[in-house]
């Protein structure tokens, strides 16, 4: 896994500032693609990071983006860049607030002055005053809105147009017109000698305000990643040459021995060398119960040692740790675009030039058929069209929701690889489950203990006494069960394992045997009293193991690959979501049927060879289902790839993340309905956002152009258009943030 992630390291990440809308995204991606060696380019508006894949010089990439009208610098380490970005965002937020205050201050002052001193009309008496005020407005416009003008100019030079273009044209037109009125009032009819300096200042102020609010809301959406970043320990207590020292985590090397005391976070991945403990892995896996760990077990960076002191050997450090990979994965997915988002990009690339055409057309119509003073009306209507049409809400609609949705899924232990998987998961109509390790625990456990005498505790003590000498997985299950029930193993002597039959030994001088029916019956033991119980075990997909002392049958123990406690509940949730559930297994039909009945699975295929799973997935897709395959990610890789959405399920962190589009960090099947519900909520949210943004623009433009004027005499003011435009992006961002409150139907007691 690590190698593969390193190969992806030919990607260069750039922090881009000045990008504000869907058109900018396109411009930046095109600028990156035009650099030699770049094969893929992707700009994420939600966190302002552009990623270029291929073999290109990072500096030339930054230069390409700069020449397209944005400032960019190369992010050396995207994992640690978050802190820098936070500081940058804070500074930018402050700057925007200052600029907003200055420009709004001037705008409001001009309005008040105009209202108090005979309006905004230019007369010979106030001509000089207006000239000074016009100059002041220009200074304020350049100081508080300079980034719009330079952005618009750079985009223009590249035959592009974006949100900056519209703002620059709108405010520029208003200012220029006012200046003409002020300098040569005689050139215009008396009615038309109105100045609009306050409009230019107010619009810039309002858009700065909108961007400031947006910036703040954006910060909140990346909380999922921040929370993961916060899991990293800053220091590690490393034992080198027999000496313990606290070192910054960056200095920990592979092979170092690290001491971790109870209550401390683990700084890197490793293997326990000394000590036993329980470790809370919930931050990585969503699994709420701390997991027992003993020497030889793997542990992960970012998890919490809750119990004992341990010493462990570092195996993966720095960006190789599971935590670092998860962070990388979540960030990548958060930045990816689902299909639906690409539609918005395509539309907005032709949108801005179209708006410019509409603005000119509007002006002409007002000039030719509008009421007097024509020149004022045509200027106001054209300016308002330019201002209200800014497609910034459109550009934010998808990435904001994807960012929140992917983060939300990560909270539930579901790691989504790309935005496409997020979109597809919402449309699923059939979920195919692998049996072993997916529906079941994947390792045998005791399901039944039946003693003829009724003393099950006694039975377990004896069985454990025999099996503690054995290495067989079934033996392990029995010993574990005995330990859990505090049944101390009896002192069995002369232990002997008979392959394929069972184990035997002597206890208090009598021969005791534990094994299958055929072997015990061959030894002359009558098992008929246990026949019913054994039949029950078999029907429930278990293996019955009989225990006898001498020639007397003592009881039967059922060992099975137990169905996970929450599998049935998770399958019920899938049904509630309107999804059909199917199981594929290599087991014989009786076992498969028993499991299907127990868990409420609609359909199953038994005796399936691993290589046939992909074929079944394909077959169901051809029947018209949108298919998810849930498997362990290694044996099932072809089936996972063949499905519309592949879920790799794994307990702990040893999952093959790259084999599936969604990885469930927690071993529970609940992750599947969680992902489906989150995905549906996210897509719904995107639809709301896109709908809102489209409606806003489709309604806003004609109103701004003045279609309401012939009926009601309403002509929107450019200031109102500026406010409405800012409001629309704030609304989209707020709606996306609403998704953070989303809760799946995961029953209580689960996590989170």
């Amino acid at each position, binding site marked *: 896994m690590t190698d593969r992630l390193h190969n992806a390291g030919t990607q260069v990440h750039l922090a881009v500032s000045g990008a504000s809308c869907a058109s900018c995204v396109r411009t930046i991606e095109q600028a990156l693609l035009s650099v030699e060696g770049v094969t893929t380019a992707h700009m994420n508006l939600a966190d302002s990071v552009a990623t270029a894949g291929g073999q290109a010089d990072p500096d030339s990439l930054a230069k390409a983006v700069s020449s397209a009208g944005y400032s960019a610098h190369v992010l050396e380490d995207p994992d640690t860049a978050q802190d820098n970005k936070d500081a940058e965002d804070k500074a930018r937020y402050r700057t925007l607030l200052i600029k907003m205050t200055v420009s709004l201050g001037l705008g409001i002052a001009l309005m008040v002055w105009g209202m108090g001193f005979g309006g905004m009309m230019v007369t010979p008496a106030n001509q000089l005053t207006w000239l000074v005020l016009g100059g002041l407005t220009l200074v304020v416009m350049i100081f508080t809105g300079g980034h719009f003008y330079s952005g618009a100019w750079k985009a223009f030079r590249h*035959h592009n147009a974006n949100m900056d273009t519209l703002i620059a044209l709108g405010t520029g037109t208003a200012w220029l017109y006012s200046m003409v009125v002020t300098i040569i009032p005689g050139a215009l009819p008396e009615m038309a000698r109105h100045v609009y300096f306050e409009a230019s200042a107010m619009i810039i102020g309002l858009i700065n305000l909108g961007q400031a609010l947006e910036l703040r809301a954006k910060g909140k959406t990346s909380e999922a990643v921040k929370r993961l970043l916060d899991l990293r320990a800053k220091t590690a207590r490393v034992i080198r040459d027999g000496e313990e020292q606290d070192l910054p985590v960056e200095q920990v090397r592979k092979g170092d021995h690290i001491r971790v005391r109870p209550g401390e976070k683990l700084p890197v991945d490793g293997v326990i060398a000394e000590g036993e403990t329980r470790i809370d892995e919930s931050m990585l896996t969503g699994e709420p119960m701390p997991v027992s760990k003993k020497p030889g077990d793997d542990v992960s960076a970012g998890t919490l040692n809750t119990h004992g002191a341990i010493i462990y050997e570092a195996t993966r450090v720095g960006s190789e740790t599971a935590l670092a990979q998860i962070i990388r994965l979540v960030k990548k997915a958060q930045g990816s675009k689902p299909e639906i988002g690409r539609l918005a990009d395509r539309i907005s690339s032709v949108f801005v030039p179209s708006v410019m055409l509409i603005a*000119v057309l509007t002006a002409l119509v007002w*000039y030719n058929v509008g009421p007097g003073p024509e020149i004022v009306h045509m200027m106001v209507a054209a300016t308002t069209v330019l201002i209200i049409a800014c497609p910034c809400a459109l550009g934010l609609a998808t990435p904001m929701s994807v960012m929140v949705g992917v983060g939300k899924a990560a909270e539930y232990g579901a790691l989504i690889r790309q935005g496409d998987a997020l979109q597809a998961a919402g449309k699923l109509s059939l979920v195919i489950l692998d049996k072993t390790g997916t529906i079941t625990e994947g390792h045998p456990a005791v399901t039944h203990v039946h003693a003829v005498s009724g003393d099950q505790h006694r039975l377990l003590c004896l069985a454990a006494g025999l099996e503690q000498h054995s290495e067989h997985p079934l033996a392990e299950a029995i010993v574990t069960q005995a330990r859990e029930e505090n049944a101390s193993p009896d002192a069995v002597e002369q232990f002997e394992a008979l392959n394929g039959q069972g184990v035997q030994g002597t206890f208090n001088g009598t021969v005791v045997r534990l094994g299958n029916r055929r072997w015990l019956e061959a030894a002359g033991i009558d098992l008929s009293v246990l026949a019913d119980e054994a039949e029950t075990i078999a029907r429930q997909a278990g293996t019955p193991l009989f225990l006898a002392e001498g020639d007397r049958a003592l009881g039967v123990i059922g060992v099975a690959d137990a169905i996970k406690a929450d599998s049935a509940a998770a399958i019920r949730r899938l049904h509630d979501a309107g999804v059909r559930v199917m199981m594929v297994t290599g087991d014989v039909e009786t076992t498969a049927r028993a499991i299907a009945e127990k868990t409420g699975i609609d359909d199953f295929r038994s005796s399936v060879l691993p290589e046939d799973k992909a074929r079944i997935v394909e077959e169901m897709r051809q029947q018209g289902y949108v298919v998810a395959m849930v498997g362990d990610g290694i044996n099932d890789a072809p089936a996972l790839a063949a499905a519309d959405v592949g879920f790799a399920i794994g307990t702990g962190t040893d999952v093959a993340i790259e084999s599936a589009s969604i990885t469930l960090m927690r071993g529970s099947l609940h992750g599947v309905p969680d992902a489906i519900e989150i995905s549906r909520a996210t897509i719904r949210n995107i639809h709301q956002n896109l709908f809102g943004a489209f409606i806003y623009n489709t309604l806003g433009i004609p109103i701004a152009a003045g279609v309401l004027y012939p009926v009601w005499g309403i002509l929107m003011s450019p200031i109102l258009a500026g406010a409405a435009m800012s409001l629309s992006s704030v609304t989209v961002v707020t709606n996306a943030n609403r998704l953070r409150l989303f809760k799946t139907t995961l029953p209580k007691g689960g996590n989170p």
Partner: protein
Amino acid sequence: MTSLMVNFGGLVLMAAIVAWFWWPGSSKNQADNSEPSQHHH
């Protein structure tokens, strides 16, 4: 006379916008290798 000039000017402006942003030779379309035939069939 003024009216004619304003209308003519508007039309020229619109033609300029189309030419600048949509003309086949503009750099935007050259870089746009994802949908090369979008604006000029």
